[in-house]
């Protein structure tokens, strides 16, 4: 059991709280993704798990054992850096073997002369050599074992970094945006590799990224963070279908959920002049209706039961088209527009023939809509 328990974990720099009182329980074998924009505290939290940053408050437990006072090498965790942090003057083989050598290192090894010999002996011992060779084979690194990191490509270096982590057989793998330095195509390939690795190796993975697609495809659980606080902690499906606040709603999904200002009115929702029946409407007067772009259909202008609007922009991405529509009598509650914008995004399959400036009607499908308080942004209980 390698369950991670964060209890009230806080990290303070002067007056600023980079990580603010975070409590999470991560079951064993989970692929936890820490997701969020730059500066939200996800990397800091990861480094606190590793022992590279100390805690200002709270504690961290691994398997029920308190580890936040332990030095990094005693926590049975491996860390993969964004820049891989491979030892540039060592071969791939030595890079992967290094943690194993350090494990058997004694203080007297520092006596000049003994150091080199002792390290060679450990490197050559059958147990170590075997483990390193097997790890390299899993990661397809065998042909380059005697090369230096600078001669390897980005993807290969990443695998060496993974190998160095794997060889320690840790209970927890910590990864700090390992795919950010790779180009898009390579990133997709490595995503699959890492998921496969998780399946093969077991153990708990904690993975930091700002890319919500990575989070959604790789994670078994996502913790979305903002300004040091966890906004929502759940499976990708939960987060997608039931975002807990408007921030989460707008962070996940490409394009993200639209938030239309509406008022509730006896089992119906009023969008400007348009009233639509909505069983789950609450008594709350001012609210934001979260409607996915796929739930907005575009009709010719003037059709009954639609919101009036005008096409602002059309983007064709191949399998579908993203259409930005400026609504006439309805406002949105998007933070980026200052809370009073009028633009929503709709998707249409295939290549849309719509042109900017065309008046259209928006037919809203409210079956999967999520309601949020206009004031606090919190989801309203359905």
């Amino acid at each position, binding site marked *: 059991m390698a369950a991670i328990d964060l209890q009230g974990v806080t990290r303070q720099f002067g007056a600023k709280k980079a990580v603010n009182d975070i409590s999470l329980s991560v079951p064993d074998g989970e692929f936890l993704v820490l997701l969020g924009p730059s500066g939200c505290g996800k990397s800091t939290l990861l*480094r606190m798990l590793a*022992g*590279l*940053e*100390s805690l200002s408050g709270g504690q961290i437990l691994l398997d029920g054992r308190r580890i936040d006072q332990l*030095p*990094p090498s005693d926590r049975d965790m491996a860390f993969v850096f964004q820049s891989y942090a491979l030892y540039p003057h060592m071969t791939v083989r030595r890079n992967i073997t290094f943690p194993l050598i350090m494990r058997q290192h004694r203080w007297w090894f520092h006596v000049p002369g003994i150091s080199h010999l002792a390290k060679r002996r450990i490197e050559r011992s059958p147990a170590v050599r075997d483990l390193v060779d097997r790890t390299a084979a899993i990661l397809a690194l065998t042909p380059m074992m005697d090369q230096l990191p600078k001669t390897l490509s980005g993807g290969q270096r990443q695998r060496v970094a993974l190998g160095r982590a794997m060889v320690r057989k840790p209970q927890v793998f910590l990864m700090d945006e390992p795919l950010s330095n790779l180009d898009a195509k390579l990133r997709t390939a490595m995503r699959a590799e890492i998921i496969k690795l998780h399946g093969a190796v077991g153990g708990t993975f904690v993975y930091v990224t700002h890319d919500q697609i990575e989070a959604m495809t790789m994670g078994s659980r996502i913790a979305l963070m903002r300004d040091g606080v966890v906004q929502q902690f759940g499976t990708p499906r939960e987060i997608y279908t039931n975002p807990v606040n408007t921030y989460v709603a707008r962070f996940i999904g490409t394009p993200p959920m639209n938030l239309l200002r509406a008022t509730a009115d006896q089992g119906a929702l009023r969008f400007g002049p348009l009233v639509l029946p909505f069983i789950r409407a609450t008594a709350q007067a001012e609210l934001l209706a979260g409607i996915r772009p796929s739930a907005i259909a575009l009709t010719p202008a003037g059709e009954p039961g639609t919101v009036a609007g005008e096409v602002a922009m059309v983007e064709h991405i191949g399998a579908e088209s993203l259409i930005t529509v400026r609504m006439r009598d309805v406002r949105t509650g998007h933070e980026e527009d200052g809370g009073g914008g009028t633009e929503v995004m709709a998707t249409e399959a295939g290549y849309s023939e719509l042109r900017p400036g065309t008046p259209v009607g928006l037919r809203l499908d409210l079956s999967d809509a999520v309601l949020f308080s206009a004031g606090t942004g919190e989801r309203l209980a359905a």
Partner: protein
Amino acid sequence: MSAAAAMAGRRGWTHGLRLLTVLLVLLGAGFPLYWMFVTSLTPSAALFAVPPHVWPSWSELGVYTEAFRTIPVGRWLRNSAVIAAGTTVLSIALAIFPAYALSRFQFRGAGLVGLGLFATQMLPEAMLVVPLYAIFGQFGLLNTLAGLILANTAFTVPVITWMLKGAIDGVPIDVEEAAKIDGCTRIGIVLSIVLPLVAPSLAAAAVISFFHGWNEYVLATTLISDEALRPASVGLASFVGELSTPVHSVMAVGLIYTVPAVVFYLFVQRYVVAGMTAGSVKG
């Protein structure tokens, strides 16, 4: 050391140990100059006392003005200043255009020039002073400040050139290209555009060449025998180890001679290091 351990160390004993060691190092680095100061302010009766005085006797400050009376300090310092200033002006004047050329142009022989500059660093002044003495004698340059300046410059200018080259390397080339399109001559570009942009390094180079000239001893002592032209380095050297001139006066003179060099160098040292480490990247 992990960040976590560093945090602990900040409040722990390793931090205290570090501070203590740094203090000891600074003490060692500063002691001789401090001792020079204390000795200059020790009353003559106590100069040869055992145990030696550790603290300066402020009442003895008069020794500084006294020294000017008995020792031709004023004349020495003036000569030193003239030599140093002359070396500075000549070195910088000679170094500017080659530094620019080495930085901006790729031409055949550039490597050779770089190598040549490096090679000059290997020749000891004490060796070249022998033929220089002979040559200067022939041309009547012995016993002249001008001659000494000419000789000093030869040893200073390679370092200055390298420093300025490094500084010019750091200036983006766009401004120059704009000026070229506007019809500026290359020389005009160097003088009115590039030079102002490397002003700090230029100032540092000036300070360094000044003190090369100020500190210089071998050439000065060999090429100049006229007492009236003697610089402070040679004058002071005549007191090293001899005890007939009051030690405190000598130390006072020594301190007056040393302080400008130390003070100015404090302002300038990071440019020197930058030049050195830049060169280490495949000099």
